[in-house]
């Protein structure tokens, strides 16, 4: 039996879209991810994000000119979510997109900066297990005038090794993980951070025997942040100025990750100011 189509409207840092789906679990999953961005009415210029269940045969998703077909739900959810995140970044005209997780505790916020595969997702969840609020594990937008942090929440992409490490670290995966492999910051109490970044950690690889945290100059961090905006080859003055001011207001470190438990303990202490 085909279910009725539903429409939900969201506006993620200005990027407006309508989620159309005939699959209840998909609606529930994506609404969990974007709940704080829900708007009541249709927005002018909103794009349609469609996720369709074929009634047991598979799933199709579509966002503007991007499409995907998957036999199972997790692939379809991940595909549409990745397309939505990319569209929200491309939509921005002034906000600076950083490849960074945002974690906070007691109004003290840290950006964990690093490329794909640097370990941001695994570390973010290990920090959530330690009681920190993780608003995103991947992309944070920066408002250049106020330096306000505007995270784009994403679903956690975890490979089996990361899952094993997190379980060994004591993380209990919610039921959604078994059902849809779609876990979002909200599942761990993640909420948007208040204020500016007070700590900036740049994750370097590869994993070492022991975690290494070393202070770096604020100028060095500003240059490293610039390299994570995708604008390093031809940065503009406003971006350089904003990232310099962001680094100027923060304690800056590099992190060579070690074993997960030791690394997460050390980073949690850093964020708490210990």
């Amino acid at each position, binding site marked *: 039996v085909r279910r009725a189509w539903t429409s939900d409207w969201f506006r993620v840092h200005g990027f407006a879209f309508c989620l159309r789906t005939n699959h209840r679990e998909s609606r529930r999953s994506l609404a969990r991810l974007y709940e704080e961005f829900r708007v009541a009415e249709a927005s002018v210029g909103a794009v349609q994000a469609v996720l369709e269940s074929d009634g047991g045969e598979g799933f199709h998703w579509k966002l503007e000119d991007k499409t995907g077909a998957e036999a199972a739900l997790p692939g379809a959810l991940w595909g549409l979510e990745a397309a939505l995140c990319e569209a929200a970044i491309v939509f921005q005209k002034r906000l600076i997109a950083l490849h960074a997780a945002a974690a906070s505790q007691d109004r003290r916020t840290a950006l964990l900066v690093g490329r794909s595969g640097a370990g941001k997702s695994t570390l973010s969840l290990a920090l959530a297990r330690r009681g920190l609020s993780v608003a995103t594990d991947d992309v944070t937008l920066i408002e250049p005038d106020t330096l306000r942090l505007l995270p784009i929440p994403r679903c956690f992409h975890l490979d089996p090794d990361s899952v094993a490490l997190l379980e060994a670290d004591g993380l209990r995966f919610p039921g959604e993980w078994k059902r849809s492999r779609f876990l979002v910051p909200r599942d761990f109490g993640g909420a948007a951070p208040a204020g500016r970044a007070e700590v900036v950690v740049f994750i370097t690889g590869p994993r070492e025997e022991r975690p290494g945290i070393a202070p770096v*100059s*604020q*100028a*060095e961090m*500003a*240059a490293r942040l*610039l390299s994570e905006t995708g*604008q*390093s*080859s*031809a*940065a*503009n*003055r406003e971006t*350089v*100025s904003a990232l*310099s001011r962001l*680094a*100027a207001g923060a304690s800056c470190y590099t992190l060579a990750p070690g074993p997960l438990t030791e690394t997460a303990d050390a980073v949690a202490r850093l964020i708490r100011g210990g």
Partner: protein
Amino acid sequence: LPDSRTETTVSGKDAFVRVPLVEEHSLPDQSLLLFEQGTGTAFPLNESGARVWAMCDGAHTVDEIVDQLAARYDASRSQIEEDTHAFVSALAGHGLLVRQSPT
């Protein structure tokens, strides 16, 4: 600093001057971010690098810069001299400094 595009030989008697169109962002920890607008490239300098940059005003020779650094930092003069020459050479190689013509 990243590898420079060209090799610049530096002598102690040389004086260098900062080129226009390099934006400077001073940070509270005394480090300095240089932004070269022509290529859109950023160069981070640590505290001692920022001091060298500030003294590249055409009025100080490289030897005088080394003297001032040697009076400030706990390192051998020969080491400071070697580092300063390499650093000035790299900045000049990136087009951020130009040699001051003798007057």
